């Protein structure tokens, strides 16, 4: 059986969650691998959530929020961006492939794009294979 | 007039964008550039229309008008959309020079051929590149030398301009600056050629120089041409050449300030200074040349109209130096008149292209008696040789 990745999606409720809803109302079909958790704002996303997801068996994490300048809370997405960039650097050092975490700006009108991003990410993670939970042989 | 069904040619527009003309999309056709373009003081040159043709992909690559722009940047500073017009023009020219459409003007083709063959636009032999320095006893640059002095092709080969490089060497020696020169393996900096659109040849020249500099262990370069300054400092980085590049305007003013050279000899003349585009609008150096001039005793500095950021180009940038400009259309002529208008007896320059252009126009206008063209380097050399 082929590997079905489990991906956590953390979406801001104002833009990206609404964008995902739009993909639904327009009946866009996309990969079922992303399981979505709704947050107020990408600014609420703690790096801990990403690490926790990996610990709990996720193979990838997709974070999506409003485009720069469109944040409902003015600048939450910029703060998410800063944390994400630093987190990425840390994850790279930990040997975690770049393709397993992704931050995207998806507006409420970009249902199509949401579907594309989910499909792309699913395929990328599928190629990477399952996330090694412990990563060591006897640890 | 004929009516035609216009299909804006997408391919041409695309090629222009690929050739670095992205900025042309920003233009909203207000005509500010045309209104202030110096060409329109002497002839008609609707640069705005050329940009619009580029936007539509309708440029006529055989039209000789595309070679007119001297890249003086006067319009860039005033463009409300910040369009870098010389870059747009360069993209158009690349389509001719690099991609092969249209017609290259004859004179430009000769300079281009010389650059490809012998590494200088004048077609002089490579091995004679350092002849200007004979009898000056200049040491060869080694990796322990602080500065490389790089003389512009004109300062190497042109009889008039050699005086500038020789003056520079004398000043540097007097100030006990640790510098050296490299040999015939160096080639033209390529700055004007790049603006004339021959990107591939420019890149090969640039790579040659970078390799020569790097192999010799060069870190700091002194130049006496602002064209070399511009491309060494602002463009060579793209190809991995990162050097500290200093024009003598900057360096000499520091030497004077630090008292390492002292201009003591009086020059009781009314002098005006012509800002070259490359040292002025490109490098933003307006004060240093004037400071140097004012440090010369007895020298009276007067300003022409259109100075500093509003200065009129001599007409020699972007490959125009190698091409023929009709008498009556030469900016250098206008500039000489402006200098005479304010009673100057010396027109000071700080660029070999300006020097060549002005000397040429002075000769053809028969005013050699009333005005002397001098590079600031030469004036400084005179002033310190007490």
């Amino acid at each position, binding site marked *: 059986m082929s590997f*079905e990745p489990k991906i956590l999606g953390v979406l801001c409720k104002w833009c990206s969650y609404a964008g995902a809803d739009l993909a639904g109302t327009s009946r866009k079909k996309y990969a079922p691998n992303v399981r979505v958790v709704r947050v107020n704002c990408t600014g609420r996303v703690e790096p801990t959530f990403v690490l926790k997801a990996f610990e709990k068996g996720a193979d990838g994490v997709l974070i999506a929020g409003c485009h720069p300048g469109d944040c409902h809370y003015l600048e939450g997405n910029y703060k998410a961006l800063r*944390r994400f960039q630093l987190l990425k650097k840390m994850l790279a050092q930990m040997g975690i492939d770049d393709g397993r975490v992704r931050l995207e700006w998806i507006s409420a009108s970009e249902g199509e794009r949401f579907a594309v991003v989910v499909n792309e990410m699913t395929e990328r993670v599928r190629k990477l294979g399952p996330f090694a939970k412990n990563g060591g042989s006897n640890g | 007039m004929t009516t035609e069904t216009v299909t804006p040619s997408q391919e041409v527009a695309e090629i222009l964008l690929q050739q670095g003309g992205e900025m042309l999309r920003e233009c909203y056709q207000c005509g500010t550039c045309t*209104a202030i373009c110096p060409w329109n003081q002497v002839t008609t040159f609707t640069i705005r229309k050329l940009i619009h043709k580029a936007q539509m992909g309708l440029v006529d690559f055989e039209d000789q008008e595309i070679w007119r722009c001297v890249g003086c940047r006067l319009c860039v500073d005033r463009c409300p959309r910040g369009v870098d017009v010389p870059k747009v023009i360069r993209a158009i020219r690349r389509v001719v020079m690099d991609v092969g459409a249209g017609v290259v003007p004859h004179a430009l083709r000769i300079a281009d051929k010389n650059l490809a063959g012998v590494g200088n636009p004048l077609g002089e032999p490579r091995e004679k590149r350092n002849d200007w320095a004979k009898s000056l006893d200049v040491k060869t640059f080694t990796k322990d030398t602080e500065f490389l002095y790089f003389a512009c092709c004109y300062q190497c080969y042109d009889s008039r301009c050699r005086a500038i490089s020789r003056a520079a060497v004398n000043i540097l020696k007097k100030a006990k600056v640790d510098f050296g020169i490299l040999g015939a393996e160096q080639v033209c900096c390529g700055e004007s050629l790049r603006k004339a659109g021959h990107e591939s040849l420019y890149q090969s020249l640039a790579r040659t120089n970078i390799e020569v500099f790097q192999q010799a262990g060069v870190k700091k370069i002194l130049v006496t041409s602002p064209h070399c300054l511009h491309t060494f400092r602002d463009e060579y980085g793209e190809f991995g050449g990162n050097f500290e590049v200093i024009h003598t305007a900057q360096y000499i003013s520091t030497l004077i300030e630090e008292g390492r050279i002292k201009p003591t000899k009086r020059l009781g003349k009314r002098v005006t200074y012509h800002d070259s585009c490359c040292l002025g609008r490109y490098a933003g150096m307006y004060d240093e040349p004037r400071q140097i001039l004012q440090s010369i005793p007895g020298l009276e500095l007067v300003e022409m109209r259109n100075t500093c950021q509003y200065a009129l180009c001599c007409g020699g940038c972007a490959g125009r130096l190698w091409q023929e400009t009709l008498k009556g259309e030469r900016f250098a002529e206008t500039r000489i008149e402006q200098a005479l208008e304010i009673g100057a007896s010396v027109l000071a320059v700080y660029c070999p292209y300006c020097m060549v252009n002005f000397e040429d126009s002075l000769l053809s206008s028969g005013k050699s008696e009333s005005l002397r063209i001098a590079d600031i380097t030469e004036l400084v050399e005179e002033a310190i040789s007490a």
Partner: protein
Amino acid sequence: MTKNKAKVGVYICHCGSNIAGVVDVKDVAAYAQGLPSVAAVKDYVYMCSDPGQNIIKEDIKHLGLNRVVVACCSPSLHELTFRRACQEAGLNPYLFQQANIREQCSWVTEDAALATVKAKALVSGAVSRVVHQEPLEKREVEINPNTLVIGGGIAGIQAALEIADGGYKVYLVEKTPSVGGHMAQLDKTFPTLDCSSCILTPKMTQAGSHPNIELMVYSEVEEISGYVGNFKVKVRKKAKYVDEEKCTGCGICQTKCPIRVDSEFDAGIGKRKAIYTPFAQAVPNVPVIVAEECTYFIKGKCRACEKFCEPGAIDFEQKDEIVEIDVGAIIASTGYGVFDPTPMAHYGYGRLDNVITSLEFERLVSSAGPTGGKIQLKDGSTPTSIAIAHCIGSRDEKYHEYCSRVCCMYALKYSHLIKEKTEADVYQMYIDMRCFGKGYEEFYKRLSEEGVKFIRGKVGEVTDRAISDEEKGKLIVLAEDSLLGNVMRVPVDMVILCVALEPQADAENTARKLGISRSADGFYLERHPKLDPVATTTDGVFVAGCCQGPKDIPDTVAQASAAAARALAMISKGKVEVEAATAHIDEERCSGCRICNDLCPFSSITFDEEKKVSRVNDALCKGCGVCVAACPSGIISGRHFTAEQIIAEIEGVLA
């Protein structure tokens, strides 16, 4: 209620065949039954219908459920519906969680089996989360019915009058000695050409005498604290050195004062005295003394004004006064500044005598202006040709990228006024004519008929260097007529630069005091560019007029009325609901590191210097959670979005 005793009811909606046609709802229900803390699971054809909601209500009452999960459509559709249902059954609405198995599952998944797997995961996430959810109370705050309007131009006057006429108190604060703003400086207004002061003066007087309006001129807002409904504002009333009660407005002081300085009101082309009212119809008609200019203050002698003042209104002992006021809403109508074209040296402003700005021309042409409305050159002669240069500092990325919106129209108005008063030729050098308003295009047509010459091209340069006899003694305007493709040298006597409208020089400072944001161009940022153009990101603060972006008088008045309506709506409701899901700092555990302090976009976090802890003001917090995520001690909790709740959901969906 403790988490250990959580009893969760899970309800799976079929949504007709929308969900059940793809997802195996029975299988999902069976799966939910096995999840921890789940006490009841039901599936139903339409959970959002009345019978559907009743199932939930009955179960809450009879099975003692204390948490509810509905797996159905998107929470943006029915979260409120189900929250209300819970509330009606006596369950706090924040103990409800929705799993979206329609928009994000059945509608988007091809494979039915995989859709069922995903639906289970989403239900698992919701159940896992809801167990950790806590009851929250919606909070309301009382609204103080008084309103502060900052800026007494036409926007501020209009807003103040609307609210005052509605029966509520308004404090109208204006920094100059009179209300009126820029509109008072204008001569005629486009496109109707009615006299600006004729339509403005009655409004100014009304504002000055309205029983509900407390006019505070020559005053500035120093500090604003508090939050929607309850702002505390400190206003500095600058010393006028004139007793308002005694002054009769006779104006003798102004004729006797020996000091003449440039008049701000006349845009520098006229003079005023050191004791002055900006213009004849000023409201209030009480002059002020500028201490920095007054001979008495500088040298200790003179007092000419005092000698001639019969009522004895001059009072050199006056001091600035700080007045504290309480208001429920604030309307910012602080207007605009005018672009100074001096840096564009090629236009010669400041160097060439008859190159003037549009505002200077406005005063020149005004019958109440320094020349009595005579259009004249610096030497007093009448111009025979005038060029009007559009877009100076506007539509220019080196200065202001935006279009100032009013210049094309006032430029047309100038053409008309020039044609009316002189024989001069008029040239308009424009990039695009933007005549978008009601009656504007018609106005353009009318002016074209008046013989104005239109040159399509931006002015490149203005010079006094003649190259022919006809250019001698003239200003030569260089522009390309891009329609002809020719560079034109237009010799004229006067050049009017249509300068940009820009944010007030102190806009940043004012925005900070108000706790509102500015857009990239520096103007105040509205909450939504289309659907909420008068509110700001701070509740209770509204914007009106050019402080939000360049606009003409009709748009300004409309926005002012809209802002007033928003303030009135708040006042008439009396209360305002504030976000319940706010952030909370556990002060017992806060180390006072101050990481969070500057992150809050709504300035709701303050630092208690004494206790060395940070604190969230609930009324300002909008619950975005940016501080919660940043707290390195993890001691800021986002109510309804706690780390515990989100992590529980993450664990749930990944289970």
